[in-house]
């Protein structure tokens, strides 16, 4: 029972680590460039969840001073993650732009095929 309770209290951390690994794995092993970008986004999102979970307290309220509220959620991680999301969006946009260019040059978005095409041109 103790282990289930422990899992329950740490569920956000657990889920974010699992998501991180899924994203990491997708990014490194998939040949499709779009899937790589999706993996990147899953990884980033897992980090956002992790960061926000650090500041979250069960039953805590938004950090606005009010009568009768004793527990507040830490607002710092949420504020930081806004910046993190902006960074992630710009990375994604730029990566997608590069994929469009790659497709124009090579006619495919498969990493292996691109490498094969490149080495054929060199030979």
């Amino acid at each position, binding site marked *: 029972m103790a282990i289930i309770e422990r899992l329950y209290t740490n569920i956000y951390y657990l889920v974010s680590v699992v998501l*991180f690994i899924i*994203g*990491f794995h997708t*990014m*490194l092993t998939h040949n499709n*460039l779009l899937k*790589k970008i999706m993996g*990147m986004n899953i*990884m*980033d999102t897992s*980090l956002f969840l*992790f*960061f926000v979970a*650090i500041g979250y307290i069960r039953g805590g309220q938004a950090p606005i001073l009010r009568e009768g509220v004793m527990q507040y959620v830490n607002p*710092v*991680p949420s504020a*930081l993650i806004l*910046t*993190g999301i902006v*960074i992630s969006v*710009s*990375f994604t946009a*730029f*990566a997608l732009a*590069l*994929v469009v*260019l*790659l497709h124009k*040059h*090579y006619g495919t978005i498969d990493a292996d095929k*691109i490498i094969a095409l*490149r080495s054929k041109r060199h030979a």
Partner: protein
Amino acid sequence: MPSLIHAPVLIVAVLLLAAFVTPLIGKRPATVNAVFLGAGLVAFVLSLSMTVRVLAQGTLSYPVGGWPAPYGIVVLVDVFAAYSSLVLATVALIIFWFAAFGPREVRHNGAYFTLILLLTAAMQGMVMAGDLFNLFVFIEISSLAAIAIIAIKGTKESVEASFRYLVLSALGSGGLLFGIALIFMITGHLNMDYIRTTLTVTAEQYPLNLLTSIGLMGVGFGVKAALFPMHVWLPDAHSNAPTASSALLSGLVVKVYIIALMRITYLALGLEIFELLPIRHLFLALSTGALIVGSVFAMVQDNVKRLLAFSTVAQVGYIFLGFGLFSQRAIEGGVLHILNHAVMKSLLFLAAGVIIHQSGIKRLSQFSGLGRKMPLTFVAFTIGAMSMVGVPGTAGFISKLYLALGALDADMLIFAILILISSLLNAAYYFPIIISAFFGKESDAGATDPAFVVLAPVAVLAGMVFFFGLFPSIMVPLVRQTALLFVR
């Protein structure tokens, strides 16, 4: 001068402002160049005066917007930051000149300058950041700008290389952010000073968090700094970029991440970390790999820019070697090598770019006799190559000497020998180029030295190689005090 207190933020602000202004001020190249170079010059002057101030009055801690830590953001300029900022500003200014007046390789100069200015601003911010999250934001800006200045060339190869760089760089950023989150989790602070004081209490309670965090951050910075064996993206990325970008990337960008990593270790984690964890041994092992593998791979290259890129992998090893040996003189050598390598690798990349542009020849096997046709460029290339090998009188000799002496201080003779071997390897791939260029059979490729305005930055860098080789004492106050931050 009271306004000098604001110098740290002004450097970043001026560069950022110029980055946003350059694409807006119209198509006239003269105005665009003026804004671009003016911003670089202002950053250089500010950085120089800030360094003088830091040397005279000690660490400069600047609360942004007047909000004190831990609620506000603090920019912390110690000697290491001031030194790094000065190196960045100086070398960047020279490369700016080349980007403005050198051979044109990109279609829109305005957009290109924006990216270069963004990159420089982010690097300046990174070396001076006093809290982890600002550090992270600057790292991301610089990563994105660094990837973009490769892709802007628009060729098939450069787009492909920059996409690979983007994927690995994003992985590194992920690791970094995770590491920062784990540290924030056990300290509740992002300000590096506060993290250090809190960690003295909480590190023992949550060792797992700290260990995971260090591992993730190590991988994150390792990927971005191209530490062996995480260097796989570097050769393609650096060799397919436009010339000015190659010089910036190889000369400055990879080193900034090393500086940021070292700043985190002594500012946020505390130096005890070096005694508690085998970080030094890891650095030593990986830098040994970098020195050997980088040089061996460089030997078999036929494309001049790829050769220089592989040489960067080896030279990054020298800097990590300095921090791995961890004796005072070794750290001085490593820190000095940040400057020396920035100067000589930028010189080599710019010279190589000029050679490729003037003659249309990329392959080393066709360099034969080219040196007699464009003597000035090849003399500059030779100076850079000699410095890479570590011929006495050049800048490269000084940092290698310090590293070797530091290895002896640390009672690790084997690394002094390693430095010697690596220098021999360097000679083995740099000297054949020079010999065939000057004494080889004349080829029929037509080539001449370019105009003075193109050669000026190359000449200045060549002069700096000799200047820092003959008068190394000029950097001693900064470098020695930086080493004292680590070895107390």
